[in-house]
Every structure is written in C-alpha cells, then in structure tokens.
C-alpha cells in the first residue's frame, strides 16, 4: 500500500502508523468530502420541503377558519373580498370519489390478473402498458378526455373523474401487484392442499392478506388525484356558480383549479384566498400521506411481514 510508503525506512512506531498521512490521508479526505456532499444533498431536499411547507403556512394559515372551509367561493375578478373554499372542497371530494370508484376495481383486477393469471408474455406487455400509463403526462390525459367526452357531452365532474381515474389506475395497480406478490407462497400452497378453488383462494386468502398494501396504495393515489390540476382544468371548466354545485353532470369547482383561477385574477384578496386554499390542500395531502405510511408500517409490523 502506498500509504505505508511514508513510513518506509523508519522504525515502526505504533503511534505513527495509526495516523493516516500522505496519500491515505488525501484519499480519506476526498471520501469524507463526498460523503458530506451526499449528506448536504439530502439536507437540501429536506430544507426545500420545510421551506415550502413553512411558506405556505405563513401565507395561508391566517385564512384558516371554519367559515373559510365552508363558505361559498370568492366572487370572480377578485375585487369583492370574502369567500371560502366550501364548494371547491366538496367538488374535489366528489371528483376523486368518482375517480376512485372507477380506478379501484380496474386497478385491483389488473393487479390480480398480472400476479395470478397472466402468462409471462402477456404479463410483460401489460406491465409495459401500466408503466406507460404511469408515465403519461397528466395534461395529455386531460386532452384525451377533452377529445373523448368534453367535445361531445360538455365539461362535467364525471369527465374530470374519469380523467383522474386514468391517473389513479397505474398507481393502484402497481402497488397492488407489489403487495399481492408479497403474500407468502405458503398461504397459497396451504389453500391448494386443502383443495380450495382458485377463486376462493384469491378472494378469501390472497386478497385479504394483501389488503393493507392495496388500501394504502389507494389512499396515496387519492391524495395524488386530489392535487392534480391539469386534467381537471381541461375537463371541468368553466365553473360559473360561487355556490355549492355538486351535480356530477355539470362542472364542479375543485381546489387546485380554484387556486389557479384566483392567481390569474391576481388581486391581493384573491391571492390571499389562494394561499389559504393551498395551505389546506397541502396540509390534507401531507397528513394523508404520513397517515397512510404510518398505518401501513404499523399493520405490517403487527403481522410480522
């Protein structure tokens, strides 16, 4: 080793050799430098997250009140002060409900097909299709539903729900496949040995065992859909009423699009409202994310997976 080169010719001195010098010292410094750079990168990401949360809270928390959460939307134009996010919250809930009613069965069935039935070849094609769907820009999904539905039947909460379902399906399916594959093979073998029919095994043994993972994936997909702007913007606009409008055959207000509209009008009062809504939306999404992860971890620990 070159690091020992410095000591050649010297009487071996334990105190001396323990201390890296010369080349080894340089190598260790380089190593330490790069290790601390990776730490710095991780620290930077966490710092950015904290700055984003803090900044949204600083600008939005003052808006928070029961009446803000329930009141009708601010008047368009942003000149008349007042207004809240009630219809937008309700509309977002409605749209993601429609999306999830469609996406949950499709996603889970796709996952069951892939993990239980598909041949290798079809499995590969379908996995590729799911990955393509997951990587699809959400604005493209909006353009697609616009062409498919809005151009024929007009914009509506249903159109937005279908668009968001396309966003949710690959998220639910891919995570469900993971948890279906994590079901221990021994369970399946035990069921087979007892002569249980395939469908009973799948519905009665495998699916319940994987349920926690599937539920978590669905909750995370819902949180993701709740924050999506682009697909809803193209399929569920314009919203004319400031009042609660929840008929799914017509447009409903949603929080992300409402934030965008308020920003466009640009007045101080409108932007304040936008911050309030952003704070609420971000808070809900982050809490749901944290909650789902904690719940999954605890339930897995309990089962000893």
């Amino acid at each position: 080793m070159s690091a020992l080169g410095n000591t050649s010719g010297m009487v071996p001195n334990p105190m001396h050799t323990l201390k890296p010098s010369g080349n080894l010292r340089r190598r260790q410094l380089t190593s330490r430098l790069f290790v601390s750079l990776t730490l710095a990168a991780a620290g930077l990401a966490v710092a950015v997250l904290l700055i984003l949360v803090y900044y949204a809270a600083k600008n939005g928390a003052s808006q928070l009140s029961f009446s803000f959460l329930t009141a009708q939307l601010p008047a368009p134009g942003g000149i008349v002060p007042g207004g809240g996010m009630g219809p937008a919250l309700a509309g977002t809930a409605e749209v993601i409900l429609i999306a999830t009613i469609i996406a949950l069965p499709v996603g889970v069935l796709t996952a069951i097909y892939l993990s239980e039935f598909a041949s290798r070849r079809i499995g590969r094609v379908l996995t590729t299709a799911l990955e393509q769907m997951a990587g699809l820009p959400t604005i493209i999904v909006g353009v697609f539903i616009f062409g498919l539905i809005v151009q024929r039947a007009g914009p509506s909460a249903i159109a937005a729900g279908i668009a968001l379902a396309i966003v949710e399906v690959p998220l639910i399916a891919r995570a469900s496949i993971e948890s279906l594959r994590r079901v221990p093979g021994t369970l399946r073998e035990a069921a087979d040995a007892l002569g249980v029919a395939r469908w009973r095994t799948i519905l009665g043994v495998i699916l319940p065992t994987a349920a926690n993972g599937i539920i978590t994936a669905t909750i995370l997909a819902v949180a993701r859909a709740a924050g999506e702007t682009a697909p809803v913007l193209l399929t569920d606009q314009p919203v004319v009423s400031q009042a609660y409008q929840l008929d799914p055959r017509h447009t409903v207000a949603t929080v992300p699009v409402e934030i965008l509209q308020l920003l466009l009008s640009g007045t101080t009062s409108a932007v304040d409202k936008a911050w309030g809504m952003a704070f609420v939306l971000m808070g809900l999404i982050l809490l749901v994310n944290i909650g789902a992860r904690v719940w999954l971890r605890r339930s897995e620990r309990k089962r000893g997976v």
Partner: protein
Amino acid sequence: MDKVDRRANGALKWLALGGGALVFLVLLAIVYQILSGASGAFDKFGLAFIFHKNWVPASNQYGAWTFVYGTLVTGVGSVLISTVLGVSIGLFLSLMAPRRVAAIIGPLVEMLAAIPSVIIGLIGIYLICPFIKTDIEPWVHSAFGWIPIFGAPQPVGNSIFAAILVLTIMVVPIIAALTRDLFLTVPGELRDGAEALGATRWEMIRGVVIPTTQSGIVAAAVLGFGRAVGEAIAVAQVIGGVPADPLNLFKGGYTGASVIANTFTSPVSNLNTSVLFYIAAILLVISIGSNLAAQRISRSFGHAL
C-alpha cells in the same frame, strides 16, 4: 371441483383480464384520440410545424419550435441538476445514513413529490422567481456570464431558469427514490470486498456501486426527464409564457405542456385546438419514447426499476 367453483374460477379470470384489457384499450384510445385531434393541424402544416418559430394564433400562424425548445431545455436542465442531487440523496439514504436517519429523511424526501404542482407553482411565483431575480441571476451572471446561457439578468423573475428549478424540486424526489432502491440491490459482498481491500467509502461507491448500477441510474434520469417534460401547471406559472427560444436561460420561454394548460380552454379557432392536439402528440411521443427507453435500459442490464 364442482361446477360452481369452475364457473367462478372462469369468471374471476375473465374479470381480471377485463381490467387488464381496459388499461390497454385506454392507452390505445389515448394515442388514437390525440392523433386524430391533431390530424387537422398535421394536414395543414406537416412535420415542418415542429421546427417553425412563428406563433400568432390570431392570424393562424403556428409553429411549435419555441415550445419544443422550451420543453427540451427545461427537461434536460432540470434532469441534469436532479440526477446529481437525486443520486447523491439515493447514495446517502441507501449506503451512508444510519438506518434510523434514513427512515426519517427518506419519507421526507418522498413527501416532496406529494406536494401538488399548482402549489409548487404558487410558491414558485411568490418565492422562487423573486429570489432568482434578485439573488441568483446577478450572482450566476457575474460568475459564469461567459457562458451564453447565463446571460444578462432580466427585470422579471419568470424565466426558463425558474422553470428548471421548479421542475428540479419535482424530479429530485423521483430520482432519489428510484436510485435508493437501486443502490440497495448492489450485493453487500461486493461493497464489503472493496472496503476490505482498503477502499475508502467514496472509492467503494465510485469503483463498485456506481459501475454496477450505471444503467439503472441512466434509466432513472430518463424517467425523470419524461416527468419533467409532462409537467404543465407549475411550469406554466413560472416560465413566463413567452413563445421564444432565447439562449439566455434568464429570459422567458414556453413549453408544450404549459401552452396546452394555458390556452386549451380558450382557443381562437378550431385550427388552434387542433394545433394544441398536435403539440400534445409531440409530448406524447417524447413521453412514450422516454418511458420505453428507461424500461429497455433497465431491463437489458437486469435492473428492475
């Protein structure tokens, strides 16, 4: 096996196949819908549309070049930064951090990906753009001004550069999560072997971890590129919305996804809508292409990303 079971087995199989088939059909329908929507503009302008610079919707002059330019520049720029940061974070989380620290920082980085794009854009407008204008631009210009892309600071903070930073916030957590899982697949014996031979931590990473995961890192970067290219809302809020292709990144620009988000619901003519479909088709090609490339790279080298 009795008759009921046999029927139920078949029913479940066909139901599951139906779910998978639906995914496939939706994907085909998306491609068909986007292409057929774009056909009007394609017939009129042909492929030259992609390289034409004029964009005056009021007088039916359309060319996509400024959007293609903005899309590629913001995509490449943000992926370059995100790959360096994301891989560093991935290294930190997988190989450097004590398990407890990684268990806290990992989910925090993932939280960053959960923040809705409209909120990142909102913070981009009020925090990042002003910060870029008053602090980053003058500093970068004085230090690196000899590189033409860091030209004269502009009076407005909304710029291609701002879009790159905002996209970086959104892509870093994706690359970090992908590469963390990737680095965890490097066999422990290889790492231990390198360290037993006297390699420092950094030498072990550079000599063993990075070479064995190279293709996976590239695949993660390509996936990040696909994501960056498709982001519409946050980019629309900070890029300035100027159909131009400036070399100076501190000037305003536009991207394909953001021009669709901004103008799709208020077209000036049917041709305008068709042109936006054409831009969506270009985006779709870039997105599908990068997803397939990422898949192929990671599969052909045996990394399942």
